[in-house]
């Protein structure tokens, strides 16, 4: 190599380091996003009570049978929440998430007293489908602050079986 000529490997190395710096910025942005939506200092010590997850009749809007943690794709089901255990001055919502993290059922956000007549939260069928998607569903009672959920007050996991 001629004296004074730059080694091309050094150029490649520096290019790589610049890219890595961009990568670190991306990962830092990801961490910032994580801590923004998961504010760990927001714990209120409150707990909601999910009384159960039951088979649900969408015509009569009634639940039936025992509390269950697995359902068939063809079965309709809903969770029931006891809103009376929560203080009146907080904003809460209850949401069903399917295995693809889509929201498939929701009540709120509202004050717990306003949700007293919405104790049953059914899972809705995805648009255009006759059956629920299989996989793990999450039912979460969340406390909202500043227009976004900051804390899960109660949670239930339900498995919708593939067959």
């Amino acid at each position, binding site marked *: 190599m001629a004296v004074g000529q730059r080694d091309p490997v050094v150029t*490649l190395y520096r*290019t790589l380091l610049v890219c890595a710096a961009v990568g670190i910025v991306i990962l830092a942005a990801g961490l910032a*996003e994580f801590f923004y*939506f998961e504010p760990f200092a927001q714990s209120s010590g409150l707990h909601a009570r999910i009384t159960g997850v039951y088979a649900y009749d969408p015509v009569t809007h009634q639940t039936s049978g025992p509390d269950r943690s697995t359902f068939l794709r063809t079965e309709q089901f809903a969770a029931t929440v006891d809103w009376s255990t929560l203080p009146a001055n907080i904003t809460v919502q209850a949401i069903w998430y399917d295995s693809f*993290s889509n929201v498939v059922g929701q009540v709120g956000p509202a004050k717990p007293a306003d949700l007293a007549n919405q104790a049953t939260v059914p899972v809705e069928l995805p648009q255009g489908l006759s059956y629920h*998607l299989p996989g793990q569903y999450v039912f979460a009672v969340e406390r909202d602050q500043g227009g976004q959920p900051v804390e899960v007050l109660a949670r239930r*996991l339900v498995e919708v079986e593939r067959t």
Partner: protein
Amino acid sequence: MSAVAPRRSANPRPHGRPARYRLAALIAAIVVIVMVANSLLDYVFLDTIPGRTSLFGLVAVVLVAVATFVFVRAFERDPAQRTRYLVRAAVLLGIAALLWLLVSDAFLFASSAGPVVAVVSTAACIPTTAFGLFVIRRIDRNEKEPWRLVLVAAAWGALVATSLVIWGESFWEQIAVRTLVPGPGLDATQAFSAGLLEELGKGTAVLLLFLVMRNEFDDVVDGIVYGAAVGLGFNFMESLTYMTNLYAIFDPAGAGPIAAGFQWYARQVLGLFMGHATYTAFVGAGIGIARQLPNRRSKVLAIVAGFVIAIAAHFSWDAWLNFFPIGGGLLGLAGIHLRTILMTGPFTTVVIVLLILGLRSESTALSAQLRKEAATGAGVVVPEEVDILRSPWRRFRERLRALDRRGIGAYVRLARLQAAQLDLAMERWHRERQELDEPLEAEDELRRKILVLRQLAAF
């Protein structure tokens, strides 16, 4: 004035078994332990495919039997040959164990929709993945990597890397859904899990190739080729998983083939290069650059940098995909393409830039080495060949001339001669940069081989 700039050796251990083999053995041992743990967890928690063990167990049993045969025969040999036979027996035994573990784990990924859908999905993904491997091998225009290593890299991505990450990701997900607020924060942590675990799983393959097959791992170009090959293998198995899984989910609504077909297009056409191939190419680029750096600190930094970019690129796709919602109809179709181009395109572009820089550096170095070799007058490279050898197009034209004059045999012989001459130039380049741990005799042996090839290729 020109001179060789004094530099420290990139691989300053000239004789004996290099320390990198011990590191490779350590990494391989960790991989085997993780895979055994995976299989045990499969057995305990996912014992849904009892037939797979008996089916593939048969192949393993045959290999164990052959290994035993070789082992017994080893003791009929003299001590000098005995070690070789024992090594062969151990290798066969290792292959049997790995086959059992790998294939039983691989079956996990395609079991949801039944064997017919799995076979059709596999048949659909093989041509596209093969095309991807063909392209990435071709771009290494000066010294193509051997198919056996490219395929080993892809197989690692498809079988080992996927098996390595499945339990880690599942474990991470189960903790996250039980502790975090559902929404963007949870999505972000799962994206971290995918980026971190999948890139570590895939990158381990490239790292092992670098440690064990140093002769076939020359620079950033080779790193990108091997990295992309691992990524294509991983993408192959992931495509199968998604195609079979979504087929099973949407089949009751009559939309199974459409769901599987969409996954095929998104992963095997649109995302063939703009996805896992790009991410792991970064890992390979980092390792390839480290191959040619003189001190350990820079080497480690380059490898870490490659992993960081790969993890970040992968993370950004998984975490921020939802920021580009896709509608229906033609606009939705355009949106799918635009999303991939906008989110992964910049990373793929950077890989291409690194590749171009690497190819340019490699071509310049090989030209210089070919000229130096021609100047020795040894006849291994003659001056008239230098301009031909430095140009892939002119090399190809020469081979076509050979084909025209003497048929396919002459074409193949000339191709072998050209490849060996370029190998020599590559060896000279690494020796000049003090990046070799082979003795000089290996280079002289290559010269002798070239002279023989030249006689065979003469026309």
